[in-house]
């Protein structure tokens, strides 16, 4: 298998595609011969990111909107005639200590990070089944297993992603669809920038140095690291990988 065109003939939907992991994955997937429906919220720089890529159709839509599943899956079928890969990557990560949660925040985070995955996947199943090698890839986190300071709803939602993904793997497997989740460690993205921007410059340096040191490989993660993991899970040759969390954290969370 050559390095190039490993996703030739495939069609993917990638949410959260206007920055970070989603943006890098759209670019990587199209380089590998895939057609992509790229989604992010209205007002995001989605068109700026991918407008010039002829293999991408951009759909600005909030994944929590009632008509989001129909809009995204419809765009894949109308433009490309099929759907092979659903990368549920959209997510939010608002920092809120457990005793200082604002009204509605919990519901919002859970709906974006988990509820939307469930709804999008349900709508995609008939097409993923027709693919013969359907793939659901959900963005979890190292916080699918452990907690993190001030990230109450986020940690809960990412644990829920693990559970939902395993349930999808169990029940969609017989339809020729695998479901797995990716567990990024600290990756430099739009979402992590939102988290670190609330810190002073000194705190941010300290936080980033902590993660670079905690990871034995000695650096922070980059979006392409996660995109490469999503590529691996998307390959036809990965069809016996099912129900797993693929941790991509430079080794940070398995050490004491």
């Amino acid at each position, binding site marked *: 298998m050559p390095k190039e065109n490993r996703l030739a003939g495939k069609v993917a939907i990638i949410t959260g595609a206007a920055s970070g992991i989603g943006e890098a994955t759209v670019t990587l997937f199209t380089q590998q011969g895939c057609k992509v429906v790229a989604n992010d919220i209205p007002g995001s720089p989605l068109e700026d990111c991918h407008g010039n890529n002829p293999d991408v159709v951009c759909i600005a839509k909030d994944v929590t909107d009632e008509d989001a599943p129909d809009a995204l899956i419809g765009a894949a079928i109308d433009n490309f005639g099929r759907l092979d890969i659903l990368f549920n990557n959209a997510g939010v990560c608002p920092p809120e200590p457990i005793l200082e949660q604002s009204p509605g925040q919990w519901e919002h985070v859970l709906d974006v990070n988990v509820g939307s995955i469930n709804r999008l996947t349900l709508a995609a199943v008939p097409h993923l089944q027709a693919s013969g090698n359907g793939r659901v890839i959900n963005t979890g986190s190292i916080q699918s297993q452990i907690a993190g300071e001030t990230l109450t709803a986020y940690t809960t939602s990412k644990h829920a992603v693990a559970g939902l993904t395993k349930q999808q793997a169990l029940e969609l497997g*017989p339809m020729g669809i695998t479901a797995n989740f990716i567990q990024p460690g600290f990756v430099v993205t739009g979402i992590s920038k939102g988290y670190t921007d609330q810190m002073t410059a000194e705190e941010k340096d300290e936080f980033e140095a902590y993660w670079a040191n905690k990871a034995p490989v000695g650096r922070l993660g980059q979006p392409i690291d996660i995109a490469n993991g999503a590529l691996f899970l998307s390959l036809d040759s990965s069809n016996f990988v*099912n129900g797993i969390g693929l941790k991509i954290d430079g080794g940070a969370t398995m050490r004491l």
Partner: protein
Amino acid sequence: MTGLLEGKVAIITGAASGIGKATTELFTAEGAKVLAVDLPGSPLNDVHGNDANVSCLEQDVTGEGAADTIVGAALEAFGKIDILFNNAGTVGQGGEVESHDEADWMFVTELNLHSMYRITKAAIPELKKSGAGRIVNVGSIRSEFADSGAAAYTTTKHGVAGLTKVLAVELGQHGITANFVQPGAILTGITEPAFAAMPEYGEYWKNRASTGRLGLPEDIANAVLYLSSDEASFVSGIGLMIDGGATSHF
């Protein structure tokens, strides 16, 4: 067209059958040179003898001086080592602990764990020079789970998890990642007799994996390829489960 492992040199143990054979074939197809190691008397040369990118070494990994012999052979054949795939292993005789033959315990731990430690130790100085060194060890779903019988196998596979994580921590600063793969029920040279003798065993695992089939050596080889490639440079210290979803539900 370039392969994912263009310019890389790999050592693969247990290379005459099953997962090791499939991985050797995939690696050379992806541009790597491979030192393929298996037991004297194994069909190693029959399997890989015609592949110009494979150098075959008949060597018992538990033999005296095996680690130095293997590392030396890789250097002599190809001048460097980028990837070490510690794949040789055995299930052993099985049986419950109370009635288990202690000699089998010693044999299984020697082959599955001690030889892995020694070969890795000998290869580390060369992997450090690579800049993108990769250690991939064969674990199992039994690196996390247990069943009645196969105590030595289960223990060593848990040990593989621990050894791999320590290697990941110690060697990350040198650009080396260390990970283990966790095959589920795979049809290989090791397991074929068991599946043939107990068809209900194969049926059980087929049904348990929601993908509805047993694993094949190629399934594992493709995962080893990912972990060995430059694309996985931020993946370290993990167990990569390849079991069709068999162990992610009750």
